[in-house]
């Protein structure tokens, strides 16, 4: 088993390297480039600007050698304070630059955890990304848990009562919700719940966007906010909960469709197996056959499917976050695309690709664990 996991992990390494290269090429191929973007930050001095250019090995001319230098600098292999060949591989501390700082290496580049500087915010990319993580995880974990749970209920019931009115109704609904553009569903929900219900005086419970009521609370995820949160935790939770309803509903509605069909198919497959006939033939109650024999086996592919859906937690809510002005990673991404904030884009691309790769690995491992029929050597 350990061997299997190690082999699968090693298999992902080329993909990871490929993703790093693509992230880098994306930055270099984009018109303007990071030099121009860096020149656009008004808040830093000329001296600092030159320091940053050296730190990332950014070169004025685009030549193959310079591209390699820039790539090495972005990775953290090279130290561009010096320009000659042996010295460039060594850090100011004298060790190989690629080593961790504690072992005498440098501190620049993604290998040392430096993803660059956000042009829009004028702060390190790592900080900019990390401060958006709580909002995204709150939204996506709530949505994922809800839709997987509901999809399992609907799919199982529909499979057990195949071709019933419920099954056919759910099939139809799955088609409809699967086909709706997510952002349009969000817009319509905002209109009905946040605008129509408010203007017609029914309720003003549903806000039209954001994560908190801005006039009642300090900006989300700042120290002031958490202080206020500590003073009135119940009020804060209710406030966030109100803002969660519509985006979570949007995500659940669009994603439940495909998953409930998946669960239904898996359950039907399980119900068709010989061991189900055996179980029925020996006179077990229908409930036991379904819950113990069919359901547990049907969950094998479902668990794998859920593992493959985990990247959604990071990069799955781009559309929904945009519509509901949710201050998460998806919205950060859209804002950064709009502002051509290269280092943030590269950082986000890297982080979400890593998540996808980890999820693929996890799916393989989970499948090998839950299904004893899989041979993994």
């Amino acid at each position, binding site marked *: 088993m350990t061997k299997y996991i190690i082999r699968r992990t090693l298999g992902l390494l080329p*993909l990871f390297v490929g993703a790093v290269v693509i992230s880098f090429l994306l930055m270099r191929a984009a018109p303007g480039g990071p030099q121009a973007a860096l020149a656009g930050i008004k808040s830093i001095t000329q001296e600092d600007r030159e320091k940053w250019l050296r730190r990332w090995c950014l070169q004025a001319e685009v030549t193959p050698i310079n591209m390699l230098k820039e790539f090495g600098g972005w990775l953290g292999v090279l130290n561009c304070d010096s320009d000659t060949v042996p010295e460039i591989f060594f850090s100011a501390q004298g060790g190989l630059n690629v080593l961790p700082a504690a072992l005498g290496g440098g501190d620049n580049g993604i290998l040392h955890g430096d993803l660059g500087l956000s042009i829009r915010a004028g702060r390190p990319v790592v900080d900019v990304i990390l401060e958006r993580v709580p909002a995204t995880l709150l939204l996506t974990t709530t949505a994922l848990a809800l839709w997987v749970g509901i999809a399992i209920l609907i799919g199982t019931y529909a499979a057990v009562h195949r071709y019933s009115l419920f099954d056919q109704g759910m099939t139809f609904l799955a088609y409809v919700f699967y086909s709706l553009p997510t952002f349009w569903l969000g817009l319509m929900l905002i209109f009905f719940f946040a*605008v129509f219900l408010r203007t017609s005086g029914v309720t003003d419970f549903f806000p039209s966007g954001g994560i908190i009521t801005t006039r009642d609370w300090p900006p989300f995820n700042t120290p002031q906010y958490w202080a206020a949160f500590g003073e009135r935790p119940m009020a804060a939770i209710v406030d966030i909960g109100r803002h969660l309803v519509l985006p979570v509903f949007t995500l659940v509605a669009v994603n439940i469709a495909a998953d409930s069909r998946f669960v239904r198919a898996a359950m039907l497959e399980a119900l068709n197996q010989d061991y189900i006939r055996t179980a029925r033939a020996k006179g077990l109650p229908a409930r036991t056959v379904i819950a113990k024999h069919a359901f547990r086996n049907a969950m094998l592919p479902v668990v794998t499917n859920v593992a493959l859906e985990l990247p959604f937690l990071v990069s799955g809510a781009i559309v929904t976050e945009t519509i509901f002005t949710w201050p998460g990673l998806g919205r950060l991404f859209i804002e950064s695309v709009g502002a051509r904030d290269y280092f943030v884009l590269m950082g986000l691309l890297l982080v979400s690709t890593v998540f996808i790769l980890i999820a693929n690995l996890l799916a393989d491992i989970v499948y090998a664990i839950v299904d004893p029929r899989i041979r993994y050597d």
Partner: protein
Amino acid sequence: MSDQPLRTPATSRVTALTDTAAADYEVALESLNQWQLAWRRFRRHRLALVGVAILAVMVFLAVFGPIIWPYDPLDLRRDLPGPQGFDPIAMPPFGSDGAGRSVFVLVANGARLSMLIGTTTMLIAVTIGVLVGAVAGFFGGWVDNLLMRFVDLVLSIPFLFIVLVAARFFGGGELVPLILIFGLLSWPGLARLVRALYLSLREQEFVLAARAVGVGDLRIAFRHILPNAIGPVVVSATLIVANAIILEAFVSYLNFGLKAQDISWGNALARSQERIAVGNWWWPFFPGMAIALTVIAINFLGDGLRDALDPRAKE
């Protein structure tokens, strides 16, 4: 399943044998080719027929809408009653947007570009996907390894991510780069599917037979195997059309897509969110409804095609 009585060839054959003279036997025994059988199965799929009907309406709207209703979509009515524009009663049939453009004219004109983008994206993606998948699956070995690792790599990058960045940085608001971006990023899933089909089909006896009589590799791959893989390919082609329409809508909605003068369903929706708060629901509603109906129809169609083109399906 269907309201009309089912007449399968099996029953008609039985009728022919028992009820009619032997001379009529040859006449009654219909011989149907693959496509006729597929069409027969397709006709029985009621949702697929609904899908075809909706698509026919949409194509009619795209082709004749701007002719029957010959208004420039960029024409503005300046006598707006307020920030929300005219409602559908004051300006039939779909009201106006916040600037005074007729939403109906936007929908009718947008149908052209949205459908054009959907179909051309599909053509690019299917061409590349089938080529790559066929070569990888048919030849195997290091070619397969190389191509599939590349597919893995593309699939391990979040799709929406790369599309939005490419559209913003390389799209330039033009139609052709946007279609190229969509097409060039949409094929890896299809290639994986085609490869899997080829891996199993190339072991079949008809391939051995073709090889035995001296048919060349390329001809086997594309004239013998490809027709047998056509069903799943057509189904995923319909999905690619649907996805491209939604994708274009979202990209243009964010203003990373087409220029404002080029009307697509996504561009028709752009900036409509600002006016929702003042009650202008018809502006986003109708273009979005057009997208949703088209995509539902395409999905119904794809489902019907899957059943119809499955060679193992019982008559």
